[in-house]
């Protein structure tokens, strides 16, 4: 945790462009994730996601995630409503009883749906709170064929994070994240995020990674995520983000 740090103008400019490139008002799409354990066992799940910004300045969103497959979990869904200054509101819908239950809000360090991604990671990828970190520009470093800015992000005093620091590689063309190295509180490399298959979304001018990988170097476990059918900022029915909708969809 950084008590006194100050972000350099160069790093701030890059992070502001990164924030603009990733900011969304609403998003729908399908994602398929595969968890791969160290021993090679796999688990694959497909989800339909609906995301709506509640407050762009406060970086708060509402999310509905509904399992599409496999059949035994299809229809199970979660609704999360993030609120500034309050705990998230979270519901779990169980199709077998056509009823939802309010559940305790997830902690930042909880793993999202059993993947290597935590709720903190998810929140940062929806939109990074750049006022909560000190960023240092470390230079330029290519990732594959793509030129990238390398930046170090250290949480500021008062920012709760499970990481001591993150190293970010931001694409010089699209300003999307190409890679992130996450360091645990002891300063050891914990896991690495890779973004692949960056393409335009539909007919829009918005770029998104259509494949991501997370590799936990400490446990040997991996998660791969494939995205399809993205629709960004094309409007979304706000009543989707209610318990009533969850129980009647």
């Amino acid at each position, binding site marked *: 945790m950084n008590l006194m740090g100050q972000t350099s103008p160069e790093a701030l400019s890059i992070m502001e462009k990164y924030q603009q490139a990733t900011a969304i008002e609403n998003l729908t799409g399908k994602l398929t994730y595969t*968890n791969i*354990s160290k021993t090679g*066992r*796999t*688990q*694959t799940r497909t989800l339909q996601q609906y995301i709506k910004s509640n407050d762009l300045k406060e970086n708060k969103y509402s999310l509905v995630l509904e399992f599409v*497959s*496999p*059949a*035994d979990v*299809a229809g199970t869904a979660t609704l999360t409503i993030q609120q500034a200054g309050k*705990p998230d509101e979270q519901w779990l819908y169980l199709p*077998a*009883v*056509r*009823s939802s*239950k*309010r*559940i*305790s*809000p997830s*902690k930042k360090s*909880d*793993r999202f749906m*059993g993947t*290597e991604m935590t709720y903190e990671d998810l929140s940062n990828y929806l939109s990074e709170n750049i006022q909560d970190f000190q960023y240092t520009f470390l230079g330029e470093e290519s990732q594959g064929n793509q030129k990238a800015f390398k930046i170090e992000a250290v949480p500021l005093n008062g920012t709760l994070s499970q990481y001591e620091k993150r190293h970010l590689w931001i694409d010089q063309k699209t300003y999307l994240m190409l890679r992130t190295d996450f360091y645990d509180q002891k300063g050891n490399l914990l896991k690495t995020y890779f973004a692949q298959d960056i393409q335009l979304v539909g007919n829009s001018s918005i770029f998104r990674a259509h494949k991501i990988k997370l590799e936990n170097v400490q*446990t040997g*476990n991996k998660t791969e995520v494939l995205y399809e059918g993205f629709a960004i900022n094309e409007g979304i*029915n706000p*009543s*989707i983000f*209610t*318990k*009533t909708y969850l129980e*009647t969809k």
Partner: protein
Amino acid sequence: MAKQFLVLLILFFTLMSSFVHSQTKEPEAWKTNFSGTAYALGRYYYQDKESSINPWQMETRGMLGLNTSYKDIFQGNLTLIANANATVESRNRLWVNEAFVSFRKGKLFLNLGKQTIKWGTLTGYSALDLVNRYDYYDILDTDNERLGLWGMDARILMGKTEIQVRAFQPDNRSKLHLQNNRWIDLPNSLPLPNAPGGEVPVFYKGNESTFNTNLPTLGMSVTSQLGSIEIQGKWLSANNDIPVSSISLLGGMENPHDYLLELDYRPIHMGAINLSSWIGSWNIWSELAHVNSERIDNSGQLSADTYSFISLGADRFWQLDHPERQVRLMAQYIKVISWIDEVYRPTELDHIFQSSLLLDAMLQLTYKWRLELRSVADMVTKGLYIAPNVQFRPSDKIHFKTGTDILAGSSDSFFGNFRHNSRIHFHLTYYPF
């Protein structure tokens, strides 16, 4: 006849919607999905040495679901079930368990048609679940046995408050398999002072059932939030799904050989308040309910049955460091306060729980293997139920589960009374779509 017509109408409507799918100018707005499950079930009653009932229960089931939808506005749903049972003829049947259409406009929502309903919304067992309509082929395993009711379910959302009104058919009778059933003891003799041995043999010749046809199954709930607490008020009025029973001798007392079982589905009314919130990572929930119903008292007369139901529960989910390992735990305490001065019989299904602790635990060891444990201990009647099982999932499409249901305790308890029904079971489930 009217029901068959409605099923056909909804089937026609749903299939037409699917057909229109290909003709519409907005084909992407229409979606049609099929879902299906096939399963095979086997149970073996290893403690029942003296019964004439086959110790094996073998059954297969196929379930086909069809859902067609237009945007967020309309849905048509059909669920068709085919059942084949090796020993119980009344379980061999093909029926439409659900056939309903749904409409949504803004914050108004309406379901119309035949639907399965679970009245309680508590994570554990709710007093309102007393009225759920089931096929009671088995008393312990009713997860897939909910029977549809004709009617409507309407909701309106106003801010964070939801009002729900449900109105369904008066016929809320659960399906009972009276003969060759391990959970129902039909009398085969009746006391008669002048007869040799003081009793005479009697024979079951059938049953007649009655219920109040002017009493629809009505429910209403209001759900809102107060900070982190969700509050739900509920009211329910219906014919009970479980009857009170009496014997009607066909030949009078002079020749008491044959009898009819009279099944009377008496009205049941209840109100409940549910509160739910969380402490740390634990979900906490509670219910306070009051029930007015009727029962056959210990003198054989129909009398009022009034009781209150207090329940407190908690559940939690752990995602362990090992990526495949998960734990889920649910614990619930139920206390029933009876306002009548009688002890309930162990065969009264609405009174299984009196001062009970329910536990439900799951440990996922790997993506393929998980262990589950369900248990109930009643401190008043001294009854105990323990059901450990193991699940193996070789693929997403095939699941295998085996385990045992152990019933034990005092004969005054439901579980102790039916201890000879302890068993092992096997389930094989296939998801074709």
